[in-house]
C-alpha cells in the first residue's frame, strides 16, 4: 500500500516502491538486468494507465499486477519457463507486500542498512572487495575471477561464504525476516 501522503505518480512514490518491486522481479527472473528493465516497464505502464487506478486502493497491489503481466511477457519473449507459478508466486507476492509495508518504516530501513554496513566490515578485506566488484560495480563472476586470478568457482564460494557471514551477523543485530 502506498503512503497516503505521497503522490502515487511522484518521484518519491517511485523510489519508495522501486526497491521491493526490483526484488520481486529479481526473485522471479534471477536476472538483475532483466529485473531493472522490467521495473522500468512497470512504472511506464503504470503511468500510462494511471487513469485506471482508483485512488485510495492498494497501489502496491496494483503495481504487482502490472509486474506479473510484464513478467508473463518477459518469459514469453525469452521462451523461458516461469520459475514461480501457483502457490510459489502467491508466496512471493505476499513477501513483496510485507516488504512494501516494512519499507514504509524509515527506522526499520535505516536500522537494517546500518547493520549491513557494520557486518560488511566483519568479512575479510578480500571478500569485501570481491563483493564490491561483484555487486557494487555489477561485474560478472568471470570478470572478478580474472582480476583476482581466481577461478569462477572460487569467486562464487567466497561470495557465498561472505553472504552467509553477513546474513548471520545482520540476524544478530536486527530482526531480519527469514534470510539466511
Amino acid at each position, binding site marked *: 500500500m502506498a503512503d497516503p501522503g505521497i503522490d502515487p505518480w511522484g518521484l518519491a512514490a517511485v523510489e519508495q516502491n522501486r*526497491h521491493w518491486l*526490483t*526484488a*520481486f522481479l*529479481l*526473485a522471479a527472473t*534471477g*536476472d*538483475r538486468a532483466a529485473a531493472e528493465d522490467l521495473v522500468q516497464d512497470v512504472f511506464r505502464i503504470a503511468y500510462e494507465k494511471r487513469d485506471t487506478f482508483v485512488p485510495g486502493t492498494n497501489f502496491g497491489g496494483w503495481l504487482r499486477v502490472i509486474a506479473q503481466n510484464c513478467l508473463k511477457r518477459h518469459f514469453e519473449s525469452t521462451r523461458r*519457463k516461469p*520459475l*514461480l507459478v*501457483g*502457490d*510459489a*508466486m*502467491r*508466496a*512471493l507476492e*505476499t*513477501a*513483496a507486500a510485507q*516488504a512494501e509495508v516494512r519499507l514504509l518504516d524509515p527506522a526499520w530501513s535505516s536500522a537494517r*542498512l546500518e547493520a*549491513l*554496513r*557494520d557486518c*560488511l*566490515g*566483519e568479512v575479510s*578485506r*578480500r571478500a*569485501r*572487495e570481491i*563483493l*564490491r*566488484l561483484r*555487486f*557494487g*560495480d555489477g561485474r*560478472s*563472476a*568471470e*570478470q572478478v*575471477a*580474472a*582480476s583476482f*586470478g581466481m*577461478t*569462477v568457482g572460487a569467486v*562464487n564460494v567466497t*561470495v*557465498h561464504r561472505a*553472504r*552467509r557471514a*553477513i546474513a548471520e551477523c545482520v540476524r544478530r543485530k536486527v530482526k531480519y*525476516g*527469514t*534470510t*539466511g
Partner: protein
Amino acid sequence: MERPDDADLDLIWRHVSGGREPGDEEALARLLARHPGRAADLFALAEERLALERILREPGPVRVARRRSSPPSARYGPRVAVAAAALLLAALLAWYRGAAPGRGSGSGRPPGDLPVAVEDASSPAADPMGAAAEPYPRPVTLAPHQVSPRAAREEAHAAEGLVQHVRSEIPAPAAAARDLELSQPAPSDQDAHVPASTDSTGARASRSPAFSTSPARAPTTDVVAVLAACQGDVFILSDGARTRARAGDRLLTGQGVETGDAPARVDVAFQDEMRVVLGASTRIQDRARSGETVRTLDVRYGMVQAEISPRVSGHPLLINTPQGEARILGTVLRLVVDPEPDGLLQLMVLTGKVRLARKSDGRWVDVHAGQYAEVHPGPDALRSRRVATVSFQDGVAPTARYEGTRDTTLAEYREGARRNFGAGSSVWADGDTADMNQPGLDKSALVRWDLSAVPRNAKVVWAEIDVSVVNDCGGRPFGIYAMRRAWDEMQATWLSPQAGAVWEKPGAQGETDRASFLLGALAPATTGPCGTFLTRAGLDAVQAWISNPATNHGLILADSENGDALGFKSREAAPPCERPRLTVSFIAR
C-alpha cells in the same frame, strides 16, 4: 515456518545473485514445487542482494570491524583509560611540535599556496589514496555535495592562469606519443657513486638511504600527463573521488589513474619524462615530493609498462610500490605489482638501468637492461637475473624457419557454420549487431603458437600479442580466452573442432571448449599494427602452455555482443612480419 537448510539458501542465493550453475534452475523449480513458501526466501535474498549493492556503492570506506575484545575502559577501569588517553595525547603533541618542523607555528604553507590537503607525502596519512588502510580499490562515487573532479580540474586550470605561471602544456596525444619516443638509456657509470657489495646470493646489494624522508611540498595543480588512449573502464582519481576518464583527459599533479577489469587499458603520456601503459586492474598515483627535483609515481597494484626518457636534470624518477621502490634515470621497464606489501613485485628492465630497493629492509639491487628482479619477503628475493625474450611469428621468429602458428576463423552464419577458413589470409572476430533481425553473425578467431622453443622450466614474466589489423573494431574490445580443447586449423568450423568431433557449444563457447576468464583483449581503433600485453591470467596460461605443451590449445578472440568486426592478418599473409606474433619473456628457474 520450517527453516530452509543452507543448501537451499545457497541454491536460492545463486539464483538471485547471477551465479547459477548447471541444473540449478531445475533444482530450484523442484524446491519451489515441494515448498512454495520458499518463494519468501527468494524474495528476501533478492532484497538482500539489492541492499548489498546499495551499501557497496556508497562512497567512503567500509567500517572495518574492530577486535571484539572489550574496550580498555571496561577491562582496566576508567582511570587507566583516561591515563592512557592522556599519555597518547601528550605523545602526539610532542611529535607534532618536535618531529614535524614548521607545523607548530601554523600550517607551514606559504600564504599564497593553493589549499591542497596533502602535507607530507611520505606519511600514510597524507596519502590521498589511503593505501595504508585499504590496498584494494575503493568504491568511490561522488556524493551530491561534492564538487566533481572534472569541475575541480576546470577550476584548477582557471586558477593556473591567474595565480601562477603556466607550465608548458602537454602536447596532443599523437604528438605526445611521438615526443616520448624511446630514448637512449642513462650513462653506464651511474652506479659508481653508490656503494655496493656482494651478498650471499651473489647479487650486488647494499644498504641504501633510499627511503629517507624529506620535507614534502604541497603539490600544485600542474598538468602532468594526458591520457593518450583509453580502453574499457578507466578512471581518474582525485581527492578520494573517481571520475570516468576518456582519451585526451589531463592528469593533474597528485591525481591517480585506475583501470577496471580486462579489457581495460590506458596509455598515459607524462610531461617530458615518460609514457606509461597500464594494464587491467591497475592503479597508479602521481605524487609531488621533495621540491621539484624528484617525481614519485606510486604503482599500487597491477601491470605497468613504462618508457622513461633520460631525466634532463639528472634527478631520478621514483616508482614506489607496496614492496619496494625503483629509482630510474631513463629506461623502459615493466612492472607487475601485488597490492599487499608482502606480495610480489616483479620488475623487468628492457633498456637502461633501475635501482630496485626493498622496503622491508632497505636492501637494493641494480637491474640492468635485459634483467629481471623480484621483491618478496622470502630469501633469495632481491637478485637480478637475466631475462630472455623470444617471439613466435611464422617465417620471422624465433627463426625464419618457424612455422608453428595455427589460426582460423569460426563463422556462425548458415552456410559458413560447416565451413573451414584455415587457409584464409586473415582471421576474424565479430558479434551480432544490435539489429535483432539479423542474428547469427558471430565469428571467433582461433590462434595457437608452438612454444616448444622455450624451456619447460622457464618462468614466464611477460607476454604480448601483436597482430596486423585489416579491419578495426572501432576501439571496442574483443576478449582473449584460453582454449581448453584441441582443434585442427584445416578442419575446425563453427560446429566442430576437428573431423568427427563437435564443440560442447557451437563456436567453442562451452566451458570445456574455452576458459571463461580473460587473458587480455584487442581493441584496435585503426588498421595496422596492434598489440596488447596479457593479464596475469594470461601469463599463467602461457606458463601452462610451456610447462605442459599438451595443454597448449592456443587462444580464441571473441565477443558475441561486439558488432564491430575485427580482422587481422593470418599466418598465411604476406609479408611475414605482419603475421600474428606472440612474444614471451621468461627467466630460468
